[in-house]
């Protein structure tokens, strides 16, 4: 009796593992395929098997992708713009959260609701008018054309998370600081901000993930390559090498690499951050 029970348990375990492995294969195999084809030559692609064993590993694909795809330039832009966006979102959302939560004024509820409204507005509905505004103000092809909308559209979520975390910070801490003669700015940046560390991590991760992959605004507001971001190494490359598939695979793998590598390294923190943001949201 006991034996059959145990057997059943292990059969159940096998099914559980089977499900998990199957889903993992579905999720990861396209990427393995991408990597495999990126190392082959274009002539080898028309096979009947699922994966190719390249006759000679074509590292040259990656060299072409790296050089002709302007990889470093686009990567640098992406890092710079996203880094700045994260810092600005944090700064603006912490200040606004403090003002709406702790400061005493009549419009605090109204302003908070107004800023949070941004969460409901579809980004793409602002593409047309924003294009007009930026071209009238000669801001197209500048870093501002990306930075302003990136920060503005990440702000509502940042503010939402910051206010919900900040409301858990006890007010007694501030009272003590006021007794010691701290001003408001010092209270915000030297007392509140350090306590908010975990939520700062969450907001940073959410903002970074949202904007890292963005290209619709970038392709609308930018025409010269000066400030274009990483997705453009793929978008522009495919036109240039339209018949050389293998090199296109290489440029895709290369473009995906930074985010995947960072994710695998910071896996635990990112998972925690996303989960925290999602549960609060």
């Amino acid at each position: 009796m006991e034996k059959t029970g145990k057997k059943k348990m292990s059969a159940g375990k096998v099914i559980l593992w089977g499900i998990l492995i199957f889903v993992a294969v579905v999720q990861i195999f396209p990427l393995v395929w991408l990597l495999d084809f990126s190392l082959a030559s274009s002539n080898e692609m028309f096979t009947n098997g699922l994966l190719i064993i390249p006759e000679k590993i074509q590292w040259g694909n990656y060299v072409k992708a790296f050089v002709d795809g302007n990889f470093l330039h686009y990567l640098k832009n992406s890092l710079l713009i996203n880094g700045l966006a994260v810092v600005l979102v944090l700064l603006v959302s912490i200040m606004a959260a403090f003002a709406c939560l702790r400061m005493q004024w009549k419009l605090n509820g109204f302003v908070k609701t107004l800023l949070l409204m941004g969460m409901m507005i579809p980004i793409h509905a602002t593409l047309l008018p924003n294009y007009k505004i930026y071209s009238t103000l000669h801001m197209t092809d500048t870093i501002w054309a990306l930075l302003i909308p990136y920060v503005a559209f990440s702000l509502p979520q940042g503010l939402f998370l910051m206010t919900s975390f900040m409301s858990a910070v006890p007010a007694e801490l501030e009272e003590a600081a006021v007794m010691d003669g701290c001003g408001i700015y010092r209270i915000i940046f030297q007392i509140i901000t350090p306590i908010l560390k975990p939520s700062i991590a969450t907001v940073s991760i959410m903002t970074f993930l949202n904007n890292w992959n963005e290209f619709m605004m970038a392709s609308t507001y930018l025409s010269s390559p000066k400030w274009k971001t990483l997705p453009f190494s793929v978008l522009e490359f495919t036109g240039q090498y339209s018949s050389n598939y293998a090199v296109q695979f290489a440029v895709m793998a290369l473009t995906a690499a930074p985010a995947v590598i960072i994710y695998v390294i910071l896996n635990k923190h990112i998972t925690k951050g996303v989960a925290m943001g999602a549960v609060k949201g």
Partner: protein
Amino acid sequence: MKKMYSNKLVITSLVLPGVLLFVFAILAPICLSVYYSLTDYSGMGSWNMIGLDNYKALMRDEAFFTALRNSLFLAIGFICIQHPLAIIVAAVLDKLSGRGESFFRCVYFIPNVISVAVIAYLWKFIYNPNFGLLNNILKVFGYKGTVNWLSAENAIWSVLVVLIWHGFGWGMLIYYSGIKNIDPTLYEAAAIDGANQKQTFLRITLPLMKPVIQVNVTMAVISALKQMETVYLLTNGGPGNATQFTATYLYQQAFKAFRYGYGNAISVVFIIICLLATVFLNKIFEEREPERRGR
């Protein structure tokens, strides 16, 4: 202390950056959109005010309703396919403890961090009739001939598959952390009462996950409405209007068909639809809220 906390100058300095950003990047564009939606502006040259003609035309525009239907299709697809899968996998993952758990969680989430541009082009290749992965898989299983995954009938399903694949890890992770938040003593109590795994899942896990499911369903509907990037690169709304979405359609109208005024009318209606959908979903879910709060 009170005086310090109601200093108008300090308050202004704290909220001004946020308010300015909101006005400049969100509010002003919307107002401008409303204005241009009343014109016949093509994107260049001069324009005339034409009143509500753009909106009237929109109400008769077959393609616009196709776009809305496609959004509805996506939303239903997410809710009926992606989310049940995500909940089941999350529940299964919760049963494993130890190393496998974080490994699988990591693997499932990886597609999520990859740029939409890469995802869209990668799937274009996967659907490729000549050397694409999917047709090769069919060949391995002995199917002869090729399937055109991006034909008028298949394209919307192909789009759905890509989006489910790309967003699966995110949904799974949210459900997973919801399950982790359930008090383990409830499971112990159920085990003592002799409940099997299926009963525990249906009677304890699912009911307690209700708030998480509600949030996720709301997000699914909104993201189905807002869909643009993947479709724009994968099919650009085609073939014909088979995979048209509101955002891709307004973009095409403004920048390809040179009907900038009309594109703005679509933008305005698009915003209204998103606002209504959010309010509506919150309303439905709120009705059940008091019971929960009462506990």
